[in-house]
């Protein structure tokens, strides 16, 4: 894994120089098109995919976030 990317993404301090670069919602995937798919892990560490989750439902609501 790219160690420089890991350190940038998982910044240790909430300072604008380190945070603002990640606010890229304006360039996010468009409405009306198939979204990109990625692997995800459940709380037991079992791997699945985002597509496996949305394909099980009529609609899937996904909230992104963290404890902090």
């Amino acid at each position, binding site marked *: 894994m790219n160690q420089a990317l890991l350190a940038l993404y998982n910044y240790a301090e909430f300072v604008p120089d380190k945070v603002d670069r990640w606010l890229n919602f304006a360039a996010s995937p468009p*409405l009306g098109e198939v979204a990109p798919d990625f692997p995800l892990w459940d709380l037991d560490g079992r791997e699945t995919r985002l597509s496996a989750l949305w394909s099980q*439902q009529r*609609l899937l*609501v996904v909230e992104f*976030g963290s404890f902090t």
Partner: protein
Amino acid sequence: MNAIAEQFASEGVGSIFLYTHEAHPGERYPHLTSMEQKLRHARALRDELGVSRPIYVDSLDGACHRAYGSNPNMSWIFDRRGVVHYKSDWTDARSIERAVEYFLEVFTRRRQGERLAPFHVERLDYRDHDRQAFFRGLERSGPKAVREFREALRIWGEE
């Protein structure tokens, strides 16, 4: 958001929480350096903050989060083909509730024979803006998170 998930579960609407990076790392919940730590923080979200929806964890480098714009508290709605129906740069339960109700109505109208075509709309929705509650949330991470956010507000001119 848990209540919204329960409200629509019987109508084929799933809801998940996707764990990203620590937006406000602090003494109790510092920045992430391993998947084991990320899973531990995600379990705390369930156990301490009561998130009852299924929680899934992104890769340590945030591949999924980054591809979707990497804002800290976004919400998205997909259909079963993965088509994006709604995206919001902040999570607000009222906004989600109304969007889901609208899309369910679209399904019903189609079932009833209406011919419908999608179009794009942009609009501003409004969320609660309780800064004191936000700071109480930061305190869970630790004094460092509070201190850094106060300083960031000063730099952004929002103090």
